[in-house]
């Protein structure tokens, strides 16, 4: 490489003692995580970890000490308000709210259909009331459909289910889709992302009549119960508290007469995680049964090796093995996503009248 490429800028060089650099960084790591202790906890616990290390532990411990100090000094209130101020700014309706959250519809014909649909929520309600949750009833929900897809990283781009499902649904007549996937979110940590509030907002903006959801991959962690008590995963009362949250979440959709399809989680690579996921699946399945027009779509068997074990590769229809899972042992490759999407469409077709364009 030519030496002129080594120039680090077009200014005259100056030399500084490393002490200054060290001081700058020591103060940054002492003051920034102290000031931002809330964010440290959320960041370091909610993002996907690249493996534990002493520095991560040190930051987290420091942040919890900072939280304690703030509380003792009576500063918590100030920092909470300050946190909310920035959160408010970043969620400011002036900046962020879309005037109307419609998906894109092909042509003006569809536009009219949407208008009709918006005009007749009452009619829709009556129709929905006629539908029995019982399987024997063959009355299918009629189009047009406004489908809301929501969930965690499986639904966000890169997780493997959300965007292929959105793409696939768009192939059907009289159907618009809105998808919101939030990485690292779930029903365990509303302090990080509050799905109940988000769902209510989305429902009022988008006015869906069908919702598809997939949650749980980040939920096997401690819950803060309404009385402020922390219940760790596996402790007595965890399942009850989590079931309550699932039930409350489903209620939002039930109240709005929205047909819900809840996608269960597939088998996972790590045995302990797989067991936890199985527990979560059984909670979803049980809770879904308690709500009208809600259906659980199991995916566990779809992606296992035939004997209930995790499989990174699965055979396609020609018998060729394709990579179905991402190396993290959780998320899905394109091929794995396709298997789940096919199943979801099939199961949806049993309940709602899907007609290909």
């Amino acid at each position: 490489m030519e030496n002129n490429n080594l120039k680090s800028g077009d200014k005259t060089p100056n030399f500084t003692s490393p002490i200054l650099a060290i001081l700058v960084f020591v103060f940054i790591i002492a003051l920034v995580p102290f000031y931002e202790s809330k964010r440290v906890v959320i960041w370091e616990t909610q993002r996907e970890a690249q493996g534990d290390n002493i520095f991560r532990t040190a930051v987290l411990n420091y942040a919890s000490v900072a939280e304690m100090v703030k509380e003792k000094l009576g500063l918590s209130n100030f920092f909470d308000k300050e946190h909310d101020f920035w959160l408010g700014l970043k969620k400011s309706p002036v900046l962020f709210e879309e005037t109307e959250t419609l998906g894109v519809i092909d042509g003006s014909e569809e536009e009219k259909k949407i208008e009709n649909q918006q005009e007749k929520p009452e009619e829709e309600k009556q129709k929905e009331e006629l539908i029995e949750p019982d399987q024997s009833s063959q009355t299918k929900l009629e189009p047009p459909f406004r489908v809301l897809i929501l969930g965690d990283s499986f639904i966000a781009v890169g997780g493997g289910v959300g965007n292929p499902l959105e793409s696939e649904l768009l192939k059907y007549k009289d159907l618009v889709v809105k998808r919101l996937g939030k990485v690292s979110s779930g029903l365990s940590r509303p302090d990080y992302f509050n799905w109940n509030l988000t769902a209510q907002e989305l429902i009022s903006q988008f006015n869906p009549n069908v919702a598809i959801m997939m949650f749980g991959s980040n939920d096997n962690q401690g819950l803060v119960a309404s009385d402020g008590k922390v219940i760790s995963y596996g402790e007595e009362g965890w399942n009850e508290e989590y079931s309550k949250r699932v039930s409350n979440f489903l209620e939002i959709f039930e109240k709005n007469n929205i047909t819900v399809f809840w996608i269960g989680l597939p088998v996972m690579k790590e045995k302990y995680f797989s067991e936890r996921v199985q527990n979560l699946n059984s909670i979803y399945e049980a809770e879904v049964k308690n709500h009208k027009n809600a259906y659980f779509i199991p995916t566990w068997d779809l992606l296992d090796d035939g004997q209930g074990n995790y499989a990174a590769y699965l055979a396609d229809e020609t018998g060729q093995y394709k990579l179905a899972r991402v190396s993290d042992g959780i998320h899905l490759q394109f091929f794995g996503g396709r298997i789940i999407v096919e199943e979801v469409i099939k199961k949806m077709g049993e309940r709602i009248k899907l007609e290909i364009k």
Partner: protein
Amino acid sequence: MLFPTFEFFYFFTLVLILNWFLKRWPTAWRLFLLFSSYYFYSVWDNNFLLILVVISIFNFFSALLIDKSILGFRKFLLFIAVFVNLLALGFFKYYDFFRVSTELLLRKFGFLVTLPLLEIILPLGLSFYILRAISYNIDVYRRKIAATFSLLDFLIYTSFFPQILSGPVMRAGDFLIQLKDGGAKKIENFYHYLTLIFLGLFKKLVISSYLVLSITDDVFAVPENHSQLVLLLAVFAYSIVIYFDFSGYSDMAIGFAGLLGFKTPINFDTPYLSSNIKDFWRRWHISISDWMRDYVYIPLGGNRKGLIRKYFNLMIVMILVGLWHGMNHYIIWGVISGLALIIFNIYQDIKERSFKINIEPVKKWREDISKFFGGIFTFIFISFSWIFFRSENTANAIKFLKSLFNFSKNIEPLKTHVLILLFVGFLVFLFEKQIIKKLTGIQQRLSAPLLILFSVLVTILILKLGPDIIPPFIYFNF
């Protein structure tokens, strides 16, 4: 450990202190550099570290052999060294692609075979350190540098933590010399490096991450669900995302290395201000462009073997650039970029041979106009070529283009914050050099306590403006 995380800042501060403290004992200092780099890398995965160590040791000895053997044998040894490195790269990067294609080919001849299913994880940074290793062997072969006898120095060169994950791909000659006698004794251009770290953080956290989360990810994943205007915005937003993401990473890499006393070549030189496509490739991801020029384009004959051969060589280089990123749509992206480069070269070659106006004022005026419009055209072209780069596969890229020309769609409301971020993004890349100069100047004038206060406040402000989750750097995938 991603650069913009608290845990990395903790790690870096400790390294910074010990780095300067240990310099008086050069061997201990070098051992410490290696240890901290290996620690940093092993946090991702211990297996990655094992692969890095094996490949590094192989290249250390291959270069020594090349350096010390007799004339005829040297070429053969170089061939072996390059082949083994490329084999490692190909194996980790493309094994599954080759498995599926070979199986399909064998099926056509009636053989139903399933080749071993190896769930291979591409070690982070492998594509970068393999290039570093190849360049080292070739430089030794060309006698540009002598092979180092210090295994320790060489191991630091392949693993140096600010550069291991995504470059810049630094040449051994430029790096190893900086390890001599305990390296730099003071920090040269401290304020400049500090500015680069803040700018890198801002580019990644405030601009790139937000645009990824609010527009590019969703629009590129399902383009058919978005209106033309939103698709068009996503095209330009991605231009900003990829530049801010990668140059932000490079800024931080250069900044962190600089604070440890290491000079790194620049990796981006305001590429979106290029007046033509040739200029763009000189200013974009410079360490890779230079690598391709020195180790592929020139050995192929460069522009010394006639025009047709020059165009052919350009195409080969751009296809290899595409292939280095991945298969399928990356290769199409490489071909598109290659074609554009060829067309521009043809235009330049014709222009050179044709009649020239030599009246100075007219010439200057014409040059300015062509620079201005050339610049706009280049930016638009590059932005559109990213469609093939960004889409998950070729089918999606085509879907994107089809949706872009589907005039029967309704208008989709635009998000105000996306427009603001795009505007800020444009401003930053238009005035990047001035911003760096200004910020560096401000810091230089501050007394030590004020500089510390300034740094703390800037970091907090960037964090405040950043999203609550940080998508990983785009170039970690390659």
